[in-house]
């Protein structure tokens, strides 16, 4: 019958119109600046650098290996290696990035940097409100802007962050087990054996790698991993940097010193 489809169409829009006053499903708009839906857990925007503990420079996981810089398809990462070294999460002396810039106006959010990073140092952020009125510098993120704490990482990607924590803890336990098996050469390190014991270990070396992870992260940590992961106490971390098994002559202040890079820090 001619005109049947017209009436059907009119009925459909009338249902939409009237339904929008009673049914939430017919009015799905989220009025964005006023209200917002939480980002999906696997959302990703641009990369950020993870650091452990309270101090972003001391706890920076990045060791300036420059793999991400080489792998980055649009070449938006610029890294300058430091001259000196600082201990990493297991206490090994590592370089750190004296300069780490990501031009997010070039970045294409491919996540390749995250996939190639062997140190779990670079992860994808969910922060998308990055508009700036500075056309040139505003979208060039330096390492301070990029540095985000592990707690923040747990907040935005809880599952992934827990897995990463577990992996790091496992690695660290392995290193410690090795250190325990081969008795520490300098006996002057009381902290090292102490830290190797799985249970109490409030010791400095542990606390450094340990993160104040949420409870779910702790529960997911493998039992072999050292327990101190859970009792992460932030204040113990700084001295921790000094006492490490493989660092007989630690340089406690060095990570905090700003290398003369002439960067925009």
């Amino acid at each position, binding site marked *: 019958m*001619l005109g049947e489809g017209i009436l059907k169409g*009119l009925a459909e*829009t009338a249902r939409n119109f009237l339904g929008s006053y009673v049914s939430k499903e*017919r009015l799905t708009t989220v*009025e964005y600046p006023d209200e917002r839906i939480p980002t999906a857990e696997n959302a990703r925007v641009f990369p950020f650098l993870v650091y452990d503990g309270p101090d972003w420079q001391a706890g920076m996981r990045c060791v300036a290996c420059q793999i991400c810089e080489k792998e980055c398809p649009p070449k938006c990462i610029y890294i300058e290696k430091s001259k000196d070294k600082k201990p990493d999460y297991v206490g090994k002396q590592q370089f750190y990035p004296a300069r780490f810039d990501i031009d997010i106006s070039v970045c294409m959010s491919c996540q390749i940097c995250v996939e190639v990073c062997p140190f779990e140092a670079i992860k994808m952020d969910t922060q998308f409100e990055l508009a700036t009125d500075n056309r040139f510098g505003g979208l060039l993120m330096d390492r301070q802007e990029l540095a985000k704490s592990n707690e923040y990482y747990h907040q935005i990607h809880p599952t992934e962050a827990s897995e990463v924590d577990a992996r790091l803890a496992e690695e660290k336990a392995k290193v410690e087990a090795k250190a325990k098996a081969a008795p520490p050469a300098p006996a002057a390190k009381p902290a090292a054996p102490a830290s190797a014991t799985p249970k109490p270990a409030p010791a400095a070396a542990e606390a450094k790698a340990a993160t104040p992870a949420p409870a779910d992260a702790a529960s997911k940590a493998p039992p072999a991993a050292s327990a101190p992961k859970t009792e992460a106490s932030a204040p113990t971390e700084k001295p921790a940097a000094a006492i490490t098994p493989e660092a007989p002559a630690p340089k406690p202040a060095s990570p905090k010193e700003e290398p003369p890079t002439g960067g925009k820090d």
Partner: protein
Amino acid sequence: MAAKIDQIFIIFANWVAGFFPAAWHAAITHVLGVIGIVSIFPALFAITTVLERKGLGRMQNRLGPNRVGPAGFLQPVADGIKSLTKEDVVPFTANGIMHFLAPLVLVVTVFMGFAVLPVGRHMQLVDMDSGLLFFFAMGAATELSVFMAGWSSRNKYSILGAMRAVAQMISYEVPMLLSAVAVVMIVGSLSLPRIVAAQDTYSGIWPHWFIFTPWGFAAFLIYAIAATSESNRSPFDLPEGESEIVAGYHTEYSGFKFALFFLGEYLAMFALSGLGTTLFLGGWAAPFSGLNFIPSWIWFFAKVMMSISVFIWMRGTFPRLRQDQLMNFAWKFILPLALLDLIVTAIWRFLGPGWQQWVVCCAILIVAYVVMGRLAFAVKHIGPRRYRYAEEGSR
């Protein structure tokens, strides 16, 4: 008291005219009427734009404007300021005078149509004996402005839009006039107040509107379709089909000239709704005899706004027609039905009151509608489009 409120604008105009010498009275009341028309209908336009956008939004599961003012109702103010402060760009090769005149001609001719429209009891600017004719003459003049705009812009999209608009408006003017002729045949007058007066009677509580007769219903449907097309509203918005020809004949207009085109289109919609109300929906007459205490002008504007909401509803529902579908529909479907409706109206007139006229007229119209619908569906280029390859592929 109710009668006084009903006539409050007339009383006010006469009171103002009382301050002037007697020779000026007619002029003063007319000027006041003009001021009323020129202020009320643009105000209605402003309200309609925001209501339309909100209503369309709801039909499409979104909110519509809600930022400016309470619930977005100051949006037209913001739009007006924007269009006033925008740069008025005239193409270098455009015919300047024509380009300037086109929006003015549109708005002026559309406003002229309101002169004969009875917006309430005794409330028409000019009680012309040939008011209907005058109205249609003014409506036809808008085509001139549309073509002026398209031609003077010196832009291929503009001229395409203008050609489409003129073809469409002339095609649909024919069935629209014929549907109005049916009313004239029954009333025996071209005067719009007389047409309303003919419908302002009741049997019991039920009104004698022409839409409640078989010929009137058919004529009303034809009129509504033709009016939608005349005012270039979706689904007949080919002249300004955004996806094909940018904005049609007002592609090259910006700033306030564009706003004038916009205003002119909406005013044409109001005028056509007002005329449809007058011809078929009883004009300012109340829908039930008991509701006569409500002023006649409230009824008129309520009916106009109802028609406008149907316009908006249709815009939110239908996709745009193709040019050939539009023309086929006008000349091969609407026009024959309109002509048949004239015959039915004559039968209705000469059969006289009784059940026979209802049966005969209804039967003729329904049979004609069904048969023509079947025929239309059978003809390949008028009926539903068959996607040969897609259908074969799916089989």
